[in-house]
C-alpha cells in the first residue's frame, strides 16, 4: 500500500512516500525516519507529491519526532502535498507544528535556512 524511497542529495536525506499511509502501513514511515536519524542526517526532506492518503497513524509518526528533532537539531521539511492530504494536516493544526512547503526547491531552501 505504501512504498518509501530514500536517496541522498547535497547532504539532505530525501524520503519519497508513494501511495497511502494508514494504520497498517505507518510503521514503514516510522522505520524510514528512524533509519535516517540513526544514520546521522540532520536535514530531512519528505516528498509527499505521490502521497495519496494519510490517516492519523501517519500524522502521529511525524508528530512523534517533533520533540526529538528539536533536541537533536534535526530539520525536517515536507513538500508537494496534494490538497486532500494537506487538509488532513490542517484539520488537526499539525500544519502549524511542522515545516511544509509547496515545492522541492522551496523545501531545500527552507531546510538550509533552518539548519544555520
Amino acid at each position, binding site marked *: 500500500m505504501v512504498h518509501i524511497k530514500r536517496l541522498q542529495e547535497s547532504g539532505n536525506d530525501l524520503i519519497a512516500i508513494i501511495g497511502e499511509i494508514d494504520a*497498517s502501513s505507518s510503521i514503514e514511515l516510522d522505520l524510514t525516519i528512524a533509519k535516517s536519524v540513526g544514520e546521522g542526517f540532520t536535514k530531512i526532506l519528505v516528498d509527499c507529491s505521490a502521497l495519496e*492518503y494519510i490517516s492519523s497513524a501517519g500524522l502521529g509518526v511525524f508528530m512523534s519526532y517533533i520533540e526529538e528533532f528539536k533536541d537533536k537539531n534535526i530539520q525536517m521539511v515536507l513538500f508537494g502535498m496534494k490538497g486532500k492530504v494537506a487538509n488532513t494536516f490542517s484539520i488537526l493544526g499539525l500544519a502549524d507544528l511542522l515545516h511544509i512547503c509547496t515545492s522541492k526547491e522551496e523545501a531545500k531552501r527552507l531546510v538550509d535556512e533552518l539548519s544555520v
Partner: protein
Amino acid sequence: MSYQYNIGCSLSNLKGIREFIRNSLKDQRMPELELAAIILALDEMCSNLMIHAHHCNPEHLLELHIDVPEKGKLIFEIIDDGNVFNINQFSSDNINDLVHEKRKGGLGIRLVKSIMDNVEYFSQEGRNICRLTKKIS
C-alpha cells in the same frame, strides 16, 4: 439509499473500507475535499475499533452501514459485538501534550470529531453502535 459492508478486524482491510465508502457516495456529488475527510473519519473510527475493541482479530466482524435518508444528510453506523469502546477516553489530550510526550496516537478520534457533525456511541440489543452523522453541501 443504504449500503452495508462487513469487514474482518484486520488493519489490512482499511483500504477496502475506504474504497467501499468512496463507491457508495459517488453519486452524492460532494466536493472531493469533503468526501476525502468523510472517508478519513470512517477509516479512523474503524481502525480504532479494530485495535482497541477487537485487538485486530480478523475473525471479529464490523458492520459498516451507510444511509442517505435525505439529500445532503449522511448517517454512518459501525456495529460490532466487541468490548465497549469509549471514544471519549481517547480524545481529551491537548495536541501540545501529545507532541511533548512524543506520542504517535491520540489524533484519530480528534479527527473524527472535527469532521463529523455528531458522534454517538451506544449499545442496543447487546450490540455496540457507533453512529456518525454528517450534513454535506
